């Protein structure tokens, strides 16, 4: 383990982790749930976070890292405070998601797939969010914003203080 990087869950997160461990009879099944807690707690799953999850579950860090790297919701590097994900899959693109992404790029001064240097916002495109009936759609952190127009995007950004 790298020096000085040993992490701990906050008491609230630890409680959540204990609940997960209690609920699953097979500890491997707790990997994704505990990784979700760690991602939320530390903002990313860097090496120290992966090691913490591994030792919590009694698994090897390699085993946990292997799993974490497969899933797009787990990020190895810190993301912005606001993570904006615009769906660009078929139904959204038929209804103009490309225009929404370009508006955001220009307005926020950050290209898709990047985090702004001030750390306030990460902009990315994402595959189908399962909200095709209200396309185009984007998610900001955990929340969906649907039936987007550039005007609507603008008012969402203002609401977020961006």
């Amino acid at each position: 383990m790298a020096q000085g990087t040993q992490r701990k869950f906050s008491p609230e997160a630890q409680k959540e982790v204990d609940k997960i461990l209690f609920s699953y009879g097979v500890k491997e099944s707790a990997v994704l749930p505990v990784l979700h807690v760690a991602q939320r707690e530390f903002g990313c799953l860097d090496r120290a976070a992966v090691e913490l999850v591994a030792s919590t579950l009694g698994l090897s860090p390699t085993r946990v890292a292997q799993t974490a790297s497969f899933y797009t919701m787990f990020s190895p590097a810190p993301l912005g405070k606001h993570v904006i994900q615009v769906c660009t899959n078929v139904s959204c693109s038929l209804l103009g998601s490309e225009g929404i992404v370009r508006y955001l790029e220009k307005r926020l001064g950050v290209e898709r797939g990047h985090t702004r240097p001030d750390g306030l916002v990460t902009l990315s495109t994402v595959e189908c969010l399962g909200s095709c009936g209200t396309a185009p759609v984007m998610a900001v952190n955990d929340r969906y914003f649907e039936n987007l127009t550039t005007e609507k995007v603008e008012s969402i950004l203002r609401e977020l203080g961006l």
Partner: protein
Amino acid sequence: MAEKILLKNVGIPGSERLETYRSRGGYRALEKALRELKPSEVTDAVKKSGLRGRGGAGFPTGLKWSFVPKDVPGPRYLCCNADEGEPGTFKDRVILENDPHMLLEGIAISCFALSVVEAFIYIRGEFALGAERLERAVAEAEEAGLLGPNVLGSDFGLKVHVHRGAGSYICGEETALLESLEGKRGLPRLKPPFPASVGLYGRPTVINNVETLSCVPSIVQNGPEWFASIGTKGNTGPKLFAVSGHVERPGVYELPLGVTLRELLFEYAGGIRGGRGLKAVMPGGSSTPVITAEQADVKMDFDSLAAVGSALGSGAVIVMDDATCMVEVALGLTKFYRHESCGQCTPCREGLGWMVRLLEGIEFGRGSTADIDLLLEIASGISGKTLCPMGDAAVIPAQSTIARFRDEYESHVRTGGCPFKSAAGKVE
């Protein structure tokens, strides 16, 4: 509109709460199953109802259940596939967010039929609201003795886990889902053995879609004959159609299987946006072959769509008007599948990247006629040559748009670019 069965509670304030669900007759089917029926009678009812899986494959649900060996000692599991990720599909989300107790009741009855005491709902990670509501519903049901040990005072007990995915399309494939549930990368398994005999933790496992399981309470409550009277022969019951794209009123419509595409699009979804013409439809999600406006009278059921060379899939109807570039659609979807390929099988991992490069060439004016044929050749080198059905699915957008709209590909090649300049403009 036909009587609503799956969406009957949607739109009622507090529809996600236990008291609302019970006040509308909820959990009576579970009570009936536990008090009046033997597990095998529940399975028989599901068989007789003709219910076919709503996740995409359309496999008879009762038959799937009967593959679980009865004489194997030890635990067996039920997994509810709530990893709704097929582009164009947003029907399960409606149930998860608005009527989680209907799903839980379906799961409980199914587990009773299958002698399962532990079930997992694998819900896609992005559905935060759905997961939250499901978790609360599980807690409410446990509190009320509808889940947990001794359900409704009987000997039957059931633990239900709400398990969140983390952003991976392939985990909707049933064996990848099991791998993911075991805390691993979502790599599909080689079949056979099938999950019915070797599934979660190596144990017999049934995997059913959200909408499929949500049909079970009404089958038990109203009888299999009633269910079988809805829809067409061999394609029974209500179906959720998720309509998106270029229609006036996109949304989820519950209609009997066998409704025509024309009726669905023009009577329910309000017709094509802005009075434009209909060009093409993917009738069951992005992995079902595109059909054309001339086929709009097709019945929306498993067998009728198969007869016109497509599939009902998940019932996700993606509608494209006459200003849509089919090459662009194929390119977008092939990129999606390339991104979601788990990388296990060489044809899918390498072939899709190659197809994307060729499609980009055609779309942006660097393609040749030979590239169109090469696309088809690569597609046939992927389809049927991978561990899981994703290989077959992934080539369908390119394959089917070339089959139906080859002239459009040719005109891209001839004119050196895309003849459809969308309002957003096109850049590489």
